[in-house]
């Protein structure tokens, strides 16, 4: 036991480990906050879809020969996020199908473009890295960390200030619109924030982890808690704890970071499901 702790203490002195912990926790926090809204709006897969869009955008940037692809990738992803959230219930193609279409479509186009024009010799490596993270979370630069900190502060602030409005447009968009709330504006803001979170964190941890971080904490919290506030708070706490546990485990056991965090999230989900069953059962 002391062995583990001394190893841990050893690692915690390394700045790359501390950086990874900070970034992991912040991304987990941000994505879980918006995750509740996304899951409730039936947009669970938007994280996955948008990160594939970002991949397609990167391919375009590479083909055009941009050195700094961030602005282009962000712009395209934001536009797609807005389009997806706009589609709503009235469209002929439902939200989940639209996400699947855009997701698979941009992955295919992106791969095609890279295949046709790319000079990179490691194509499958490039594709794989979009799924599992292009930069390993253990090799973050201090620029990455700062960007992540600033972004997270903005996201949390946005969420706190717009919390009531997010609830309202998520629960009943028509009512919000009909009674003079600026639902389109709030949807737009939500879409932009989501796109930003996804683009930034995708480069750090990969799209697999992002989807998991969006979906699992929200679903776990919804097993047990019954008001929007308690679900949101619980999702945030669960997400942060799982991210920390996953990160530390992966450092100690040498397992891949993203997959380990997802595994911990799955365990948490199972635990919450059981608690929910017991609570629900005793009441009935």
């Amino acid at each position, binding site marked *: 036991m002391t062995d583990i702790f001394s190893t841990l203490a050893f690692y915690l002195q390394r700045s790359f480990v501390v950086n990874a912990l900070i970034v992991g926790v912040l991304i987990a926090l941000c994505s879980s906050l918006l995750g509740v809204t996304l899951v*409730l*709006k*039936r947009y669970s897969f938007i994280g996955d879809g948008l990160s594939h869009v970002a991949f397609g955008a990167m391919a375009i940037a590479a083909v055009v020969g941009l050195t700094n692809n961030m602005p282009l990738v962000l712009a395209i992803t934001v536009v797609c996020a807005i389009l997806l959230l706009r589609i709503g*219930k009235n469209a002929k193609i439902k939200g989940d199908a639209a996400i699947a279409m855009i997701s698979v479509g941009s992955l295919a186009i992106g791969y095609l473009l890279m295949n046709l024009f790319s000079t990179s010799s490691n194509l499958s490596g490039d594709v794989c890295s979009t799924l599992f993270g292009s930069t390993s979370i253990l090799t973050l630069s201090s620029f990455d960390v700062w960007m992540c900190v600033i972004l997270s502060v903005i996201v949390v602030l946005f969420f*706190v*200030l*717009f*919390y*009531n*409005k997010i*609830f*309202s447009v*998520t*629960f*009943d968009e*028509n*009512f*919000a*619109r*009909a*009674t*003079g*709330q600026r639902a389109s504006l709030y949807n737009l803001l939500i879409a932009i924030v989501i796109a930003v979170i996804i683009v930034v964190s995708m480069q750090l941890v990969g799209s697999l982890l992002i989807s998991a971080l969006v979906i699992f904490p929200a679903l776990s919290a*919804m097993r047990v*808690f*019954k*008001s*929007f*506030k*308690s*679900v949101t708070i619980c999702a945030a706490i669960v997400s942060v704890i799982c991210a920390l546990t996953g990160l530390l485990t992966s450092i100690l056991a040498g397992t891949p970071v993203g997959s380990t965090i997802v595994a911990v999230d799955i365990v948490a989900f199972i635990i919450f499901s059981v608690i929910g069953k017991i609570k629900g059962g005793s009441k009935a």
Partner: protein
Amino acid sequence: MPQLICKDLSLGYGSQEIQHGLSFEVNSGDYLCIVGENGSGKTTLMKTVLGLQKPLSGTIEFSEGLSSRDIGYLPQQTDVQRDFPASVQEIVISGCLGRKGFSPFYNKDDKALAQRSMERMNILDLKKRCYRELSGGQQQRVLLARALCATQKILLLDEPVAGLDPKVTADMYELIDSLNKDDGVTIIMISHDVDKALRYASHILHIGNECFFGTKEEYRDFKDGAVKGEDDND
């Protein structure tokens, strides 16, 4: 003085027209019932009046001093809400948001208003309960309390009694009636129950192949005429 004037409205989606030539007005304190068959365009009319979709042609005018911020709306239930984790309190108070513009948090007045609306709807004891665990009738009253938080002037209700048992339906009608008579709230309501509509409403708008708008007395004559007409055909 009319609160709402609709002139020569035609309703529809895209190029497909569902109704045309609808004209009616609603005065302060009126109780208008909209009746008509399934699919005749009642919900579409209400959504158009609410500004959720554009009319294909025609105009909708609210009187001076009445804006979308003075409207309360009870939607036909959507499936998203069915498994939504939200407490009754959270839902009711969200009715206040339209008035608040960008200010981020609820204040004392909002909380007091939510409290009063819940009291009025007799759901104070459900305050902390989870919305998705309530019965259909309780859910309708929660949504009505939310609508009351949005306005005291004009309520638009889309089939508020759908799926409720006769007793709860009767209670709901009484509740709506008292909002209209005692609190002076203008009611525009969609209903399938013509008898109830004739009992409570002051005006009827019938939409279908043949459209009609007038007071309920006029509607009785219109219906009798229609029945006679059918008899003559036989």
